[in-house]
């Protein structure tokens, strides 16, 4: 099968540039076209400026700034001949059929034979776009709809046509899935496809109902957010983020393209308030503010919220909605049942939205799972509409609809008393629109812990961790404590996993979980309690225990592959450092952040980083460069903002793997583990040269300078001094060698002293209370 080696993106706006960045993140070179800039010396200036913005964007569009070098600027007048080298041309220009078609004709003239052309349109249908265009162009034309920002939003809606070959479709699907890390959802050629069809309805409904029912935006966001697994931005903060000015275009385009009987028309209106806001420059976060704003002319950052009826701003409240608290995270029905204004509001918005979503089956989508995927990946909902309906109870939901004389969609009637998702005989099943349950088979190369859980029992389990059999003699260690923090239970499970593999047929261990975050690190709550009780020996024990467990894993006679995604901080980063290999999701954010709570990495993190940097061939020679670098990384609690950045920090090695698609991490990690099994030899302990006190003095002096200039706090100086002692090798001298055990001992000694320091205790308490580091 041919591959995608070079891509062109035409249109260097926010979406086009963001798509180009993600293609560059995948290691593929990409041409970024825009209009020629008239009157400028460089005719590619518009595209160049877009690349400049990508480099500075926050959140970063590029996984590593140097990826920008893969994006080549071009203009649509002088450079279209460059399309001859491209395997895929993505159009991301203005939503105007005429302008798009004119461009397609030009593309068609220059493109490589058989190269795929696709549009990133969010509102137009494929049929409109290809109408009247030559057959051979239509055969290669798709819609590939990315979500903003393209690096972080996982959804890609793919619309094909009957004349497009399977091969072309699969080529793009495969590239989007494996290289760009997208969850590809096949959509029919209908207005708004899936996610926006439901999402825009939901947002509009929430705005209209809030105005009608006189619900404050703070309450609306609170009640629509957490109870339904919807990001805490809820509705109004989300609209501020997206941009208020975008909504009228999207709404009118939906209204024009949806069939007259669509319920959307019932809620379609453009509230006067929003028109005024846009006219006054309140277009959301990119403008002066939107529904929320920061109080103008105030030096303090005071958040204000708009009153939907008067249009006046007042200090935003943190609403304490009883029912939100009572419902918690997994009981949306409690909110919907509640006879309070918040409860009634939630019912009106969510019942209409879920009913609307259900009504789209089977005409807009005959795949319930696809509908759920679209909302999860495109709108960051934790649960899709049908998963929510399962949680709410379809039977109850329908009864309530009937009591309101609302029509019940067919698919809800069909599922009746049942659920859309169920487990049956070791398989996860989903309700098909034709009334039967279908087995859910993961895609090739996708391994989900959920599937394994559906068909088997854990090999071992305790309150914080479980061990699963991944087949082929590979075990998977899963954390499931709060935020996957590490505690004695998790350490114990690591030990038990090692013993199990050492004494059985199992051959390898993968450390992985399905959570948003691999692990936030050691549970400092335990440390806080211990400090309060003066149980310092317990803290000393925890440190030694963690060191022993990690060391035993490192030297175990079988390979260990850690497969992080999301946060892997502190103790979790130390686990990566002790693994034989790491198979990281591209969106892995890792670092040794201990100094933020007044301690140092004590489970071998200092040791591993020091050894890695000392022995690396690209570190400048001499006893200090490695020490200075590691001192900087740990001392400033630096966190890699991507797996690629983690590689620059040597937390992930050059030979470790990076998986772009979250769903493929586990399968890739298992494959890596199996590769390591044959002929596996555990690593041997190393000794390194460190400068001793001569180096420590130089580091301490630098920190003292930072303290004097106000960049370091008094306790920073204390923590840094402990760190510099470890990293410089204690009382060694550059003629001697420092062993791994000696470094572990230095870590323990430093931890022993720091954890008893009142300023460290204060830092830990503060972090637990506020989630923010204390600068004492």
């Amino acid at each position, binding site marked *: 099968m041919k591959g995608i080696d070079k891509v062109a993106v035409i249109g260097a706006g926010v979406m086009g540039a963001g798509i180009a960045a993600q293609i560059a993140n995948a290691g593929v070179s990409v041409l970024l076209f825009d209009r020629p800039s008239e009157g400028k010396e460089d005719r590619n200036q518009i595209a160049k400026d877009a690349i400049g913005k990508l480099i500075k964007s926050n959140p970063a569009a590029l996984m590593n700034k140097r990826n920008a070098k893969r994006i080549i600027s071009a203009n649509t007048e002088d450079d279209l001949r460059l399309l001859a080298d491209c395997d895929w041309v993505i159009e991301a220009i203005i939503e105007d059929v005429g302008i798009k078609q004119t461009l397609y004709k030009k593309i068609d003239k220059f493109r490589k034979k058989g190269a795929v052309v696709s549009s990133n349109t969010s509102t137009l249908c494929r049929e409109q776009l290809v109408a009247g265009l030559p057959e051979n162009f239509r055969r290669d034309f798709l819609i590939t709809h990315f979500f903003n920002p393209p690096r972080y939003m996982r959804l890609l809606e793919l619309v094909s046509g009957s004349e497009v070959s399977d091969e072309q479709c699969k080529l793009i699907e495969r590239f989007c899935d494996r290289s760009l890390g997208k969850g590809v959802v096949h959509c029919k050629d209908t207005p708004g496809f899936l996610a926006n069809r439901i999402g825009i309805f939901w947002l509009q409904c929430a705005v209209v109902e809030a105005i009608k029912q006189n619900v404050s935006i703070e309450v609306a966001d609170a009640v629509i957010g957490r109870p339904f697994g919807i990001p805490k931005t809820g509705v109004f903060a989300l609209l501020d983020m997206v941009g208020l000015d975008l909504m009228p275009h999207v709404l009118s385009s939906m209204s024009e393209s949806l069939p007259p009987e669509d319920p959307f028309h019932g809620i379609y209106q453009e509230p006067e308030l929003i028109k005024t806001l846009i006219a006054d420059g309140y277009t959301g976060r990119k403008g002066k503010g939107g529904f929320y704003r920061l109080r103008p002319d105030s030096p303090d950052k005071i958040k204000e919220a708009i009153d939907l009826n008067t249009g006046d701003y007042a200090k935003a409240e943190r609403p304490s909605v009883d029912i939100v608290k009572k419902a918690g995270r997994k009981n949306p029905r409690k909110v919907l049942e509640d006879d309070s204004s918040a409860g009634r509001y939630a019912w009106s918005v969510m019942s209409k939205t879920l009913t609307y979503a259900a009504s789209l089956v089977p005409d807009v989508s005959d795949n319930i799972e696809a509908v759920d995927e679209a909302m999860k990946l495109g709108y960051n909902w934790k649960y899709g509409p049908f998963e929510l309906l399962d949680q709410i109870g379809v039977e109850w939901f329908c009864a309530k609809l009937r009591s309101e004389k609302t029509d019940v969609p067919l698919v809800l009637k069909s599922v009746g008393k049942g659920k859309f998702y169920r487990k049956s005989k070791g398989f996860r099943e989903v309700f098909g629109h034709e009334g039967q349950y279908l087995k859910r088979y993961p895609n090739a190369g996708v391994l989900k812990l959920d599937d394994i859980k559906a068909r088997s029992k854990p090999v071992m389990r305790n309150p914080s961790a479980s061990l699963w059999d991944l087949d082929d003699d590979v075990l998977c260690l899963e954390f499931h404590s709060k935020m996957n923090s590490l505690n004695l239970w998790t350490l114990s499970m690591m030990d038990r996993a090692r013993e199990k593999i050492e004494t059985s047929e199992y051959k390898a261990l993968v450390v992985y979980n399905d959570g948003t975050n691999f692990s936030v690190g050691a549970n400092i709550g335990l440390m806080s309690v211990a400090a309060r009780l003066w149980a310092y020996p317990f803290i000393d024990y925890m440190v030694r225990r963690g060191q022993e467990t990690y060391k035993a894993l490192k030297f175990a006679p079988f390979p260990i592959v850690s497969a992080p995604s999301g946060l892997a901080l502190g103790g979790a980063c130390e686990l990566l450092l002790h693994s034989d290999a790491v198979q990281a999701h591209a969106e892995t954010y890792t670092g040794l952040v201990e100094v933020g709570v007044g301690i140092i990495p004590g489970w071998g993190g200092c040791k591993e980083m020091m050894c890695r940097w000392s022995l690396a061939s690209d570190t*400048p*020679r*001499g*006893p*200090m*460069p490695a020490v200075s670098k590691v001192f900087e990384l740990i001392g400033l609690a630096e966190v890699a903002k991507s797996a690629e950045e983690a590689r620059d920090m040597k937390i992930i090695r050059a030979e470790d793997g990076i998986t772009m698609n979250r769903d493929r991490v586990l399968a890739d990690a298992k494959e890596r583990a199996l590769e390591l099994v044959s002929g596996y030899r555990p690593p041997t302990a190393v000794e390194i040269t460190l*400068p001793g*006190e*001569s*180096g*420590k*003095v*130089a580091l301490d*002096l630098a920190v003292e*300078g930072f303290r*004097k*200039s*106000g960049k370091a706090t008094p306790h920073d100086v204390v923590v840094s001094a402990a760190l510099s002692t470890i990293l410089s090798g204690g009382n060694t001298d*550059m003629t001697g060698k420092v062993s791994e055990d000696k470094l572990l001992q230095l870590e323990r000694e430093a931890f022993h002293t720091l954890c008893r320091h009142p300023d460290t205790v204060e830092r830990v308490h503060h972090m637990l209370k506020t989630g923010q580091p204390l600068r004492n």
Partner: protein
Amino acid sequence: MVDIVIAGYARSPFHFANKGALAKVRPDDLVAQVIKGLVHKTGIEGKAIEAVFMGCAFPEGEQGLNVARLAVFLADLPQSVGGATINHFCGSSMQAIHMAAGAISMGAGDAYICAGIESMTRVPMMGFNPLLNPSLAKEYPAAYISMGETAENVADKYAISRKDQDQFSLNSHLKAAEAQGKGNFKDEIIPVKTPAGDMVDQDGCIRENSTIEGLAELSPAFKEEGNVTAGSSSPLTDGATAVIVCTSDFAKTQGLDVLAKIRSIAVAGCAPEIMGIGPVAATNKAIARAGISLSDLDVIELNEAFASQALACMADLKLDESKINLDGGAIAIGHPLGATGARITGKAAQLLKREKGKFALATQCIGGGQGIATILEAVE
């Protein structure tokens, strides 16, 4: 005693470290281009040169391995020319001039190229392997005091106000910008070729649009409640300099354009905590050795490591501000540590001739608590 003269001065453009146009240029290549340019410009005969003395404050990495000898090869000088690298921190290349003058007085040759190099991009300040003596650091921490801190100490001790420092810094930029506009640097700058093939022929640190308001907004850089800012400090800089030091007879024979005669030299130590005041003692010594008085000076090049120390030295020595740093100083032009001494000595010689004065002073402070000074005299 034989007359020893400065008979040629050249430098590279000076650019900000890390972000400037010379960041990708190896320091040995950079200084070799300057030496080659100087040799070409003056027409000095290569084989007549005794040696290259090269000042460098952190002589390691790409400016290590006795970079002076390597520069001889890179600049296509004959093998017979020697090369020695000299480290006297910021005073390194002025020290090179002093040592050449001393050697010539001893009859050890007729002509030296005294150069200076510092790529503060490619070799960090403190070097790659700062390894301090722990007991010295404990018993006498001032030995390792940071330069920014000394600037604050001097500001405190000599009551140099923030406003005066900002004004001094602004003047430095304005003078340098004016000089640049007039083409005053044209004669001294050797265009440098970068690995990408670009020719760099202009200084990169001078901010012609600098304003007093802009400078006043900057936060203190070294002490939370201090008054020394990045704007009143010389920037981290990449650059190279070279001058010809020879006997007046040699200059005549070779047809070199003599800029000035070296009248006297001096170094002097002071408390490391206020190293910026070092030029005072060194200047007083050099003036006494020259048998002249401070009021005899027509041109003064007083290095601007920091505005605070320059102002303190001016106040202590009661120098006439109108004679100081006529084409701007290091705050505006830049301070590539090892290269500055030869720049201000060569510049003082050039200015003495331009301004038709009689005596010139070039002086600078040195980390660790020292000052170095050179008195130049006009030649008929």
